[in-house]
């Protein structure tokens, strides 16, 4: 057994010889691997290609570039890293990085991602709603008045979904509804308009069970499929702000 040693290279040189000299020195010293620093928008060369450039000129050392996944195509990135493994004859690694900086999203243009995944949480019990760090909360009102009460307890920027179990076959903590699709549509319309619920999560054993309900809601003009591409856009949530952004820039 031996301990393993790695070296982090964080230069921004565009001269191949600089990189070759560094990595060869580490290779000759028996270092196990080097990592190549990179961020999506930095001044400096692409780290995967730097690793490719030194690969044929080194023999033993592992080559671990940073590659950012947020804006890159998974197909291209996975192909590039697999190819680095070929050109280095099995010495490639990958240090994963995500990009939360809106300035990096601007480099790619108008198709900015939604910032962060939407966070959804159950709020079935009597919690202090406002402290839940979620975008979407699932609640289980007993009736329209209870639904309105629960909505009032929750910060307005969060989205409140009523959990409803349709039919008796799904064991959940959600309120159970038994009745026709028309009656369920009436309930949904009432809770949406009167109680201020933002949406509904229907708990079913088979999605085809709600086809009549969806048709009825569409007929009433209450529901229509969204053309938005991100979930945040569909739900009317703002793009997430990176909580570290201000601290990082200070």
């Amino acid at each position, binding site marked *: 057994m031996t301990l393993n040693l790695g070296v982090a290279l964080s230069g921004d040189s*565009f*001269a*191949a010889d600089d990189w*070759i000299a560094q990595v060869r020195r580490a290779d000759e010293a028996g270092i196990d691997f080097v990592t190549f620093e990179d961020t999506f*928008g*930095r*001044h*400096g*060369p*692409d780290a*995967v*290609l*730097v690793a*490719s*450039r*030194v*690969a*044929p*000129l080194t023999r033993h050392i592992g080559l671990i570039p940073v590659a950012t996944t947020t*804006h*890159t*195509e*998974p*197909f*291209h990135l996975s*192909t*590039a890293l*697999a*190819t*680095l493994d*070929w*050109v280095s*004859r099995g010495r490639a690694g990958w240090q994963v990085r995500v990009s939360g900086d809106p*300035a*990096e999203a*601007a*480099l*790619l*243009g*108008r*198709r900015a991602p939604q910032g962060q995944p939407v966070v959804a949480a159950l709020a079935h019990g009597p919690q202090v709603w406002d402290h839940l760090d979620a975008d979407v909360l699932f609640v289980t009102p007993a009736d329209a008045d209870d639904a309105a009460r629960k909505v009032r307890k929750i910060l307005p920027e969060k989205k409140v979904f009523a959990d409803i179990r349709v039919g008796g076959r799904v064991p959940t903590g959600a309120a159970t509804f038994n009745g026709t699709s028309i009656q369920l549509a009436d309930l949904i319309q009432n809770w949406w308009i009167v109680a201020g619920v933002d949406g509904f999560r229907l708990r079913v054993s088979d999605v085809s069970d709600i086809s009549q309900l969806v048709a009825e809601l569409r007929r009433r003009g209450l529901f229509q499929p969204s053309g938005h591409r991100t979930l945040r856009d569909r739900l009317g949530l703002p793009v997430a702000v990176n909580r570290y952004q201000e601290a990082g820039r200070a």
Partner: protein
Amino acid sequence: VPKQIILAAHFPGVNNTTVWSDPRAGSQIDFDSFEYLARTAERGKFDFFFLAEGLRLREQRGLIHDLDVVGRPDTLTVLTALAAVTTHLGLAGTLNATYHEPYELARRLATLDHLSGGRAAWNVVTSPGAFFGENFRRGGFLDHADRYVRLGEFIETARKLWDSDGGEFAIRNGQFDIKGRFGVPRSPRGHPIILQAGDSGGGRELAARHSDAIFSRHHQIDDARQFYRDIKDRLPAYGRREDSLKIIPGVSYVLGDSDADAQEKAHHIRRRQVSPQTAILLLEQLWNTDLSGYDAEGPLPDIDPVLDDDDTIIKGRAGMYPDRLRTAAEWRARAEAKNLSIRDLIIEVTGRQNFIGTAARVAEQLNEYVQTDACDGFILVPHLTPAGLDDFVDQVVPLLQERGVFRTEYSGTTLRDNLGLS
């Protein structure tokens, strides 16, 4: 001084023209294969090495096309590694403008250009349609009609990023709306070389406007001369000189001890390129329907092709037959007149080698093409990986050098130097 011939080495690709059943065939993915061909090309003083891009395994009859080679590498990763084992050879590759984004691709291309000392070249293509799109975030977002808009704006955007020289940029056009700081200074010769293959009117115009070279498909000498004239005549409108855009068709060749020997070898290679299974698959690409019940050594089908170009039997290959019924009628007439089986016919109508003969004859023909303005040089597509250009470098290159139409030493270090481009 006679025109100097441009020569490039195409790494054998995914099509059936690459013969894998030959005992000399090496790996399609091992770095040794790329290194071998690149070193061979540099030994022959070639201008550049060329690598195509694979965005998805092709499918036929709804299944993976299992006669295709599987396992294609990332273009820029291979080219950058080849910069480590070569010193003068240009490093060119196809990168799709539909499924890349300008900031990232311009950054990676500029990185290669720096790390190779000015030897990078980019063959710009677009792929509309949903089939490739399924492998990417945006899906098949690009309409066929918009492909040249995307291509032109992508090239313009990349050039602006390179010219920003590591500074701030803000670019807005129909396809892109980007801003920030481009983190790569200008490379040794400014921009990577840009190649393009577009052949329609729109594609030719874009090439005349933006490209340094065209990867052309015009092989027959008269047709090639017409294409050459057409392209060069478009250049003055953009304030460009004739010699600022090079026309380089992709070609294949077969050498023999005598012309008859070369013809025999060429026939043998074609039979290996078109196995019975390959013959049926290629016939299906015209007929657009399952022909697996037909015997490749038997006659052509008497049914007509299926005319549904929205649902083709082959997925991932550009449309080759604008008029299926007419082509099918021509093939039937040819097969009947010469009593050809399906396989014999496919051998005749696909993949014929462009230059066949002794090294002296091939050298003479190549030179005639260039001196009579059918082209400015050739991208040679060997049928074997990785040693398929050995005979050309050993036998044909010295003859071209003797004629004074091909370099005996590199005169500069960048690809622009090789191509004689400013």
